[in-house]
């Protein structure tokens, strides 16, 4: 049946197609014109398609278009071959061209059906237009919101700033608002985009980077007070830092807000200092009595020795003894003066300290004064290692203030017709519970107690039950503020001692930690 390749392509046995048309010019012309026009058109379509694909690189299903172009090209070629076979009977070649065309056609047809669901899923132009409209509206809403927030950012009285957290964990300044620029004296343009450790002096950088790191580590807002040296001078701030997370959950930005509380702090310190000096005033009589004792000893020994000298007694061993006693007594006076001086001093930065030391010191400071008034201060302060954080002198001040209140209450209660002349005992106790992380200091008097109606108001500023000129009403509220700043609390309750004796118990609770835990805590910070 098949006579080899040569036989397959052999055309000698065939007649050209024109013969079938009897070479009739009108029929030939009709075929020629139709095939030429169809062929040319078919050839132009893939060119147009290719041009489109090349120009619009974003078009989906590019390969289908390429296939379609090949299909049309093949169809065009079959038309030109129809023309060729009018004169040359190369039906074998024409058959091959048709077969190729059939192959491409089938592939294209299959591909079209396979791709149909995907093609249908493509949004239509109308859908796209709708989506675009919605997007435009959304963009407008966002733009308005951004304008609003930008207006907030630029006009708020509160200082705001943005810090970028770089992938390597370093911090860079992004921006700060005009209020913060004014308050700090920092020009936003000079720090924008710069690393924190390069944009500000090393001391300041160390302080703020520690806080930024703490915010990242906490993964949530943190809130603290800090004192910084800035171009505008040394100022104290109340700062809140809020971390912002990126898509991967990592903190990529920190939003900060800062309020300058320098003046408020200064006023607070002034108030604390005033109240401290007032407390010292009420203790003056006790101090004078306490100092007169060593001074008395010095004077008697000195004049007695002088008198002996003038009588011709030059016993050097005796003189040595006298001078040693005098020196020791001078030292004893020095300690009393030191205690007053320390107490009246302005307290510095917060530090770790043993609250028991403040309790002992406060008791020591008042007991002489109180003894003069027949008031006994009984203290039970265990010697344990217990550490809290704050200002030791301020805690001592709170305690001295509470002790003074107790003494005032006792003196009034003695004079009160309904009171008790036997009143006169103040008990000071302390417990340090390291497991619970708190120390509890109690001061209990037998001065009759506080009217339950006013008990809730006693920590209010300017609240006082004392007669005009006797109390500022600031003692307890300042005490409350001091204990609160240590993270502790102060409470008052009436207590019944039995046998008709009653009074008030003030309880101060402050957070404590074991001294050996210090290093661990520092490592965490």
């Amino acid at each position, binding site marked *: 049946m098949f006579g080899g390749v040569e036989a397959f392509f052999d055309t000698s046995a065939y007649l050209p197609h024109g013969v079938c048309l009897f070479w009739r010019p009108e029929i030939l012309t009709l075929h020629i014109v139709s095939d030429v026009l169809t062929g040319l058109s078919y050839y132009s379509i893939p060119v147009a398609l290719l041009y489109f694909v090349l120009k619009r690189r974003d078009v989906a299903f590019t390969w289908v278009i390429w296939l379609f172009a090949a299909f049309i090209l093949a169809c065009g070629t079959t038309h030109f071959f129809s023309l060729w076979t009018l004169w040359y009977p190369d039906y074998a070649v024409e058959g091959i061209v048709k077969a190729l065309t059939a192959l491409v056609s089938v592939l294209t047809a299959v591909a079209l059906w396979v791709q149909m669901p995907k093609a249908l899923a493509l949004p239509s132009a109308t859908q796209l237009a709708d989506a675009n409209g919605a997007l435009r509206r959304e963009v407008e809403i966002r733009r308005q919101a951004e304008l609003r927030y930008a207006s907030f950012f630029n006009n708020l009285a509160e200082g705001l700033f943005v810090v970028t957290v770089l992938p390597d964990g370093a911090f860079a300044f992004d921006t700060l608002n005009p209020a913060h620029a004014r308050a700090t004296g920092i020009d936003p343009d000079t720090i924008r985009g710069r690393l924190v450790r390069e944009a500000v002096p090393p001391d300041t950088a160390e302080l703020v980077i520690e806080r930024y790191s703490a915010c990242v580590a906490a993964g949530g807002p943190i809130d603290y007070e800090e004192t910084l040296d800035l171009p505008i001078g040394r100022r104290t701030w109340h700062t809140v830092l809020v971390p912002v997370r990126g898509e991967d959950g990592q903190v990529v930005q920190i939003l900060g807000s800062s309020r300058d509380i320098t003046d408020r702090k200064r006023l607070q310190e002034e108030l604390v200092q005033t109240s401290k000096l007032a407390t010292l005033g009420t203790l003056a009589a006790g101090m*004078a*009595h306490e100092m007169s004792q060593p001074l008395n000893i010095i004077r008697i020994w000195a004049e*007695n020795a002088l008198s002996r000298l003038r009588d011709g007694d030059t016993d050097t061993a005796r003189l040595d003894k006298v001078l040693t006693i005098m020196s020791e007594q001078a030292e004893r006076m020095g300690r009393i003066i030191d205690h007053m001086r320390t107490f009246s001093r302005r307290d510095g930065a917060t530090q770790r300290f043993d609250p028991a030391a403040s309790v002992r010191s406060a008791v020591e400071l008042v007991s002489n004064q109180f003894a003069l008034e027949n008031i006994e201060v009984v203290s039970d302060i265990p010697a344990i290692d217990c550490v809290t954080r704050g200002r030791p002198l301020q805690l001592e001040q709170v305690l001295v203030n509470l002790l003074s209140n107790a003494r005032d209450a006792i003196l009034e209660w003695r004079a009160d017709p309904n009171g008790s002349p036997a009143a006169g005992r103040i008990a000071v106790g302390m417990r340090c519970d390291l497991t619970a992380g708190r120390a509890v200091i109690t001061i209990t008097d037998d001065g009759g107690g506080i009217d339950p109606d006013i008990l809730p108001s006693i920590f209010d500023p300017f609240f006082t039950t004392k007669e005009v000129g006797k109390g500022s009403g600031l003692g307890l509220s300042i005490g409350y503020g001091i204990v609160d700043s240590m993270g502790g609390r102060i409470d008052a309750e009436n207590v019944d001692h039995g046998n008709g004796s009653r009074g008030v118990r003030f309880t101060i609770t402050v957070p404590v930690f074991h001294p050996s835990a210090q290093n661990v805590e520092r490592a965490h910070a």
Partner: protein
Amino acid sequence: MPDPVPAPLHVLVAEDEALAAMALEDFLSRKGFRVTLAQDGQEGLERYSADPADLVITDLRMPRMDGRALIRELRIRAAGLPILVMTGFLSMEAGEDDLTSERWQPLVVLRKPVSPQVILDTLTSLARAAKLRPV
């Protein structure tokens, strides 16, 4: 026949500051007094009861029995006993316990720090006023 040598005046010193008491004892002994020391009011009262003194020097603030209580007790036993008070108090006016009032006389208050010479002078004039034999 010459007069017998007069016995020295007996002073009771109630003072809880041992060093102050010791120095006073030394000074007053040298000035011809017989001195008895007591560490507080209670001991002072006991010593006075056992061996009554001619003059008393007392502090006010002392443990167990304070100076005011001691003075009250002494006044019950000896109305005219001359008393010298040494104190570090700023003020002596404390209601009915006002030591400057007439009812506590004869009594002199000296503020600490006290000069021993002033103590001697005061004791001497108190003794003279009480018509005690001369020092």
